[in-house]
């Protein structure tokens, strides 16, 4: 049995037809991957919302492609977790409440302008990649292969956003500087207390530490943001230094009680009957999935 900081690290997952125990490592991996997948989930919906603000047809198409990638990565991680943890398919997308999401808190405030959108999306993309890349050389080969594939696509997200950030007006640069002051600390603290014990690193599933991920994130963004905003690198670094607040939830990587705003959640998982009707039905839906014959439709799971 795995032990973390003196706590019993076994969680019991109960379903109506099955029951099994989740090891501490499984649970830590689930929590970490949910932080990444949920952030990509929200970010993908940002791209969909912003898509029509593109300046040209290829611009709009590029945003659509980025949204498709982000949502694709989200669902690939959801499928991996559902398969490994024995959860019913689509439970992670359709069977959770907003309060159960592990999304990046900085994405809960909608973009206020074009500059704010670019800075926030760029910071989120860099943070997601750096956290993902800690699994790149890890012992979990299925996961590391998936991360490698994601990385090939995410590079172009960052490059595209970098290109857009360096082609902004003076007014938009002002917006980017303001955005960095507000969003920067919230994204930087996503890496949490990098000195804390790391079960995944100890188990070899994560080959790089959170500390190296955080410093890699800083290295990735400082020069690009300096060029885009005209700020000095030291000034940007100072904005990205942030201690975790007292009410920090290290499992969800955000403040306790912080949830996705209702309007954003309704956009992600619509409940309005007209919107649900207009949405393309899932090829394999939660309701008619044949696999559910052998498994519980929903299982109670503690995601925290």
């Amino acid at each position, binding site marked *: 049995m795995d032990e973390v900081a003196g706590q019993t690290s076994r969680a019991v997952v109960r379903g109506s037809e099955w029951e099994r125990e989740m090891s501490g490592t499984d649970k830590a991996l689930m929590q970490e991957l949910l932080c990444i997948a949920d952030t990509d989930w929200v970010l993908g919906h940002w791209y969909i919302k912003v898509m029509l603000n593109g*300046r*040209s047809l*290829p*611009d709009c*198409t*590029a*945003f*659509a*492609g*980025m949204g498709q*990638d982000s949502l694709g990565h989200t669902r690939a991680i959801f499928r991996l977790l559902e398969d490994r943890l024995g959860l019913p398919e689509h439970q992670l997308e359709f069977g959770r409440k907003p309060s159960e999401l592990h999304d990046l808190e900085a994405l809960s*405030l*909608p*973009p*206020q*302008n*074009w500059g704010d959108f670019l800075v926030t999306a760029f910071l989120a993309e860099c943070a997601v990649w750096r956290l993902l890349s800690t699994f790149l050389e890890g012992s979990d080969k299925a996961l590391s292969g998936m991360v490698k594939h994601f990385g090939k*696509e995410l590079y*172009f*997200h960052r*490059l*595209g*956003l*970098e*290109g*857009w950030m*360096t*082609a902004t*007006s003076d*007014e*938009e640069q002002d*917006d980017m500087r303001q955005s960095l002051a507000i969003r920067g600390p919230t994204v930087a603290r996503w890496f949490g207390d990098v000195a804390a014990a790391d079960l995944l690193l100890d188990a070899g599933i994560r080959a790089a530490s959170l500390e190296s991920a955080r410093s890699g994130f800083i290295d990735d963004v400082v020069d690009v943001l300096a060029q885009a905003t005209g700020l000095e690198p030291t000034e940007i670094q100072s904005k990205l230094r942030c201690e975790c607040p007292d009410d920090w939830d290290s499992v969800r990587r955000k403040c306790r009680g912080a949830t996705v*705003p209702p*309007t954003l959640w309704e956009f992600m998982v619509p409940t309005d009957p007209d919107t649900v009707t207009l949405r393309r039905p899932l090829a394999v839906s939660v309701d008619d999935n044949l696999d559910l014959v052998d498994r519980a439709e929903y299982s109670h799971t503690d995601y925290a």
Partner: protein
Amino acid sequence: MGLVTQKTARNTMDWDYFEVFAREELDGPLFHLGSVSAPNRAAAVGQARMVYSEKPWVEMCICPRAEVIPVISVNDMIGIA
């Protein structure tokens, strides 16, 4: 939800065009896929990858349209003084 109050008009006509090429197989030809217009090379690379992602290309490259050297041209009678 906050309202976007500032909108900056962008003159996309000033953007450069980039031609996009890709290879589907290692020993296959380099196809011309189309073009993108972007304010700089980084944005053009990002756009090309996102826009022309319909196949798992083994190679993709772009070049500024302005740097393409014409050999036979619809606009110029090359070789005729």
